[in-house]
């Protein structure tokens, strides 16, 4: 049987519990409302994938700066800022500036004070390469060779040998690959060749060096070819021995190298869904070699499987 005293005691306990919950809620609420939003990230050099130290980071919204930081040596940064007490979704801009790199910006979404990613990775393109980026065309960039003339000669030779082959297939000018010389694109390690291709939006990237022979006018030319799809890891290597840099010899590429470059261009077409063009590139590559290779066949089969023409082949269906 319940007594009045025990009932009183129980009600009292309930009131105390409620008061405690309210107190705790009041305690938490101001803390949540006034805690800074924290954005964490890393700034990376697009060509070497190493961190960029000393980059200025800003978080802005509607023209006003909410927070600032400078990246550490390894490119990492943390910016904390106050975005207000609202629980709404808000957009802010992350701006990155460094004197050696092109400016970069990123839109971040902050929901109830929390950013949409735990860690942001932002890649920066070295300023020296800004004029070398492909503008959506297929093709390649011929980078540093130690001699601007040599890079130009390689570009010319590539353009001639590949374009004549491709144009013979009556491929429209808009789909023909182009090759540009960019002496500023100078990878420091063979691991970086593919990064340069990606950074410059090029299907393939060529670079290399010249080694002087005892006879002062003769050189060995090393040419390395890489791509943005990871087809050539490590980069393909061509060696032109004992050549005069001023002559066409120095810039020559083996038919196998030409075919490999066309395969990379075919991968570019494949990636954007232009499967007929992909097939045509593999045909051009095969004709350069006067016969097929397993790489060419694999690439072609992948693209053929996506062609509308495949609907004509199946004997079982109407």
């Amino acid at each position, binding site marked *: 049987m319940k007594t009045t005293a025990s009932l009183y005691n129980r009600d009292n306990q309930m009131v105390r519990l409620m008061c405690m919950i309210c107190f705790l809620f009041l305690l938490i609420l101001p803390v949540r409302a006034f805690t800074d939003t924290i954005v964490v990230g890393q700034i990376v050099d697009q060509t070497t994938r190493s961190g960029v130290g000393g980059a200025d980071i800003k978080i802005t919204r509607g023209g006003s700066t909410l927070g600032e930081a400078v990246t550490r040596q390894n490119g990492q940064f943390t910016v904390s800022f106050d975005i207000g007490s609202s629980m709404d979704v808000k957009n802010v801009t992350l701006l990155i500036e460094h004197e050696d790199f092109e400016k970069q910006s990123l839109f971040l979404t902050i929901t109830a004070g929390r950013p949409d990613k735990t860690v942001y990775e932002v890649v920066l393109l070295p300023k020296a390469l800004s004029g070398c980026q492909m503008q959506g065309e297929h093709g390649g960039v011929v980078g540093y060779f130690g001699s601007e003339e040599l890079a130009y000669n390689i570009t010319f030779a590539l353009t001639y040998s590949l374009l004549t082959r491709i*144009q013979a297939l*009556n491929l429209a000018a808009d789909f023909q690959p182009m090759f540009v010389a960019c002496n500023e694109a100078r990878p420091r390690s063979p691991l970086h060749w593919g990064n340069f291709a990606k950074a410059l939006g090029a299907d393939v990237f060529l670079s290399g060096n010249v080694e002087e022979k005892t006879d002062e006018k003769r050189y060995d030319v090393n040419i390395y070819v890489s791509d943005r799809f990871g087809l050539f890891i490590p980069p393909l290597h061509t060696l032109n021995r004992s050549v005069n840099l001023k002559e*066409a010899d120095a810039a020559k590429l083996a038919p196998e190298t030409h075919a490999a470059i066309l395969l990379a261009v075919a991968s570019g077409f494949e990636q954007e869904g232009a499967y007929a063009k992909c097939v045509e590139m593999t045909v051009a590559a095969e004709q350069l070699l*006067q*016969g097929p290779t397993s790489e060419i066949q694999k690439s072609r089969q992948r693209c053929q499987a996506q062609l509308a023409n495949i*609907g*004509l082949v199946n*004997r079982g269906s109407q």
Partner: protein
Amino acid sequence: MKTPGITMLLLAVALLFCAAPVNAEMRIDIEKELRLLEQGEPLPKHIPFAQYRVAVFTYEDPDGTGLGNDLAALVGKHILLHSGVVSLGVLRYEGQLSPNKLSRLSYFDKVERLIEAQEVSLAVWGMIRMIGENLVIDTYAQIPRKISEQYFAWQLRLPEAMGGANLQAHLRPDRIHLQKLSIPGRSQDGIVDAAKQVDALRENPDAAAEVKGHLPLGEVYWVIGRRGDWAEFKTLSGLTGWAPISGNCILECRLLLNAAQFAANLLIYMQDRRETPKVMAGLSTDTLAVTEQIQALEALNGNFRQIRKISLPLAERWIGPRRWKGQDPTTKIDRGSGVPPGGAAFANLRTLALMAYELQAAFQRRIEGAGAGSDPRWIYEELSIPTAAVESLAFDLAEASLVDPENIDVLHNLAVLFEYAGQTNKAKLARYLVQRIHNSK
């Protein structure tokens, strides 16, 4: 306003050209013509009175050998004097074909732009490189679209009983690599000398005769006579003189003229379709493919025995399990081993040959069994091939279309064959693909 005198003069000149066969040559600046085209200006038609006109471009010369114009001069002059075409004009274009900052148009595409505007029959151009101690000379020919339709297109009309539609084929490739010639660098002087000789006009047909002048740039000149290895030229300004036909172009220089001769053979074929081009040692895989394709397609006009003996075996040299690989036993030209020049053109040719063979054989049987007075035309119109056989051919051709997915001839023929075979969805798809390609152009 033209004066009566000028009108009379123009009439006289026109009559002169109408009365006599014309073989003329003229030199033209590439960049000047392109600028006019870009500005939308109408281009004057050069040597308009010639029935066939060929454009020969200065060979690209990135290594500065100085031979670009000399090679073009030799090739141009060889075509002019050896094609045997009654009425021929050679336009000698001078300038560069490689891409530049102003235009992405280059090589075949740049040539196409100029020759389509000039409506020439054929273009020849090339590239010369100094590789080590050797001169490497590439020579190309290209056939404009209009000319391809006019001279290098074939049709096979199916009988009414099969729907009466046409199966079609065009010569592929129409952008042809004629030759890659590697000759010792020491040949350079010989080429320059030979080119000088063919441009120098002498008093008499004799290498020791006095030089009266040179064939001019930007002016028409004609061949007005021949004596042995010499041709007599006359320029518009009235200069006449003799220049050698083969001249000093001997040894390595002579090999270059094989490419020029192939181009000349294409013209001869255009003039008289009975003589198909002949391939010579040292020419490219493309020339062998073009030669055999033309021979095979021409034989389709013959009886079923010719189709079986010529068209089918020639097609099967390039495709299928009996494809010939590596060095050709007769010409020593490398046939390669994969997709042949022209993509699916040989597969298309094989399809036409098999259809033509079946129809011709059936026609022959019916004719032999028919009574006197039967109209052969009606016999042909009543012929039909079993749908299962046509369906099988269509599927074989469809497989070939996978290596050449935008070949209009192949897709058109697939639409016709699938329709007849009762594969209406596939016929519809083939027609849709043809339309899509037309729309994208």
